[in-house]
């Protein structure tokens, strides 16, 4: 599997994500700087990491979403290539219009940093095929702006078309319908607030995140 991790000024989970991808796939991902006007050919997966791109100025992910590299990411997605956005990467994908809705300030105004229980809603996707629909997994979150909001019509459509990938099992940040991760209509773009790259090896205390990357590998190997 050939993967790339985009690096924006202020990304801080890019290295963890590269380590997790290399651990599972055995191949070192390419690092893609935000100013790159083109992405390399032949990539299977482009991942957008967590962090505070451009200091979260204006809105989280807003400035990164307009970076030159995002044209290549959008073209990759339009060709059916896989795109995974984690935390700030999810915020960037909504700001870029590759996923619907918006991620707003947590309803409690607190920065939430802890393990959360997630319900796997959609298991029949490239990202979640190693998981079972309805099972619960534990993955850490660390965010201030994770409160997913969209109009009622969009939320209904996401639910009816199987685009909700993960839900929080309990209240975390005020997200509409407890949504923790969503897919685009073609199901090749996934955005999620929790950090699967932070639970991939025994020293992390939990390896539920590893299963997501292993599922991806089984599709693309």
């Amino acid at each position: 599997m050939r993967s790339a991790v985009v690096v924006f000024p202020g990304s801080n989970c890019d290295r963890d994500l590269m380590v997790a991808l290399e651990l599972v796939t055995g191949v070192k991902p390419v690092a893609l700087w935000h100013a790159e006007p083109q992405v390399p050919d032949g990539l299977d997966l482009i991942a957008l990491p967590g962090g505070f791109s451009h200091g979260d100025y204006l809105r989280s992910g807003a400035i990164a979403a307009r970076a030159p590299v995002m044209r290549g990411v959008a073209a990759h997605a339009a060709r059916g290539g896989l795109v995974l956005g984690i935390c700030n990467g999810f915020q960037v994908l909504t700001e870029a219009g590759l996923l619907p809705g918006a991620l707003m300030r947590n309803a409690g105004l607190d920065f939430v940093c802890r393990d959360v229980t997630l319900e796997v809603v959609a298991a029949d996707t490239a990202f979640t095929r190693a998981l079972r629909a309805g099972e619960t997994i534990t993955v850490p979150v660390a965010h201030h702006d994770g409160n997913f909001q969209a109009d009622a019509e969009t939320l209904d459509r996401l639910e009816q078309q199987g685009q909700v990938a993960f839900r929080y099992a309990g209240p975390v940040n005020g997200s509409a319908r407890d949504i923790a991760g969503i897919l685009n209509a073609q199901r090749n773009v996934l955005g999620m607030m929790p950090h699967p790259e932070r639970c991939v090896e025994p020293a992390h205390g939990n390896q539920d995140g590893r299963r997501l990357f292993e599922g991806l590998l089984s599709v693309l190997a």
Partner: protein
Amino acid sequence: MKARVTVSLKPGVLDPQGRAIAHALEGLGFAGVADVRVGKLIELDVADGTSQAEVEEMARKLLANTVIENFRVDLA
């Protein structure tokens, strides 16, 4: 010349910051504040002759997220 872009949350979008401010005002003894909504004022120094439509394009493309926000442009 100056252009002012006022960005505000759409009606119906929950504003936790506004709510916290309303609470704080209440704590200071200001009665009768039914609701608080927080927005942004963005002031641009633009070339003379810049049109309303050009600044609106800037707002649509970057300054506001029209999924959750409305904006107003004032040229002065």
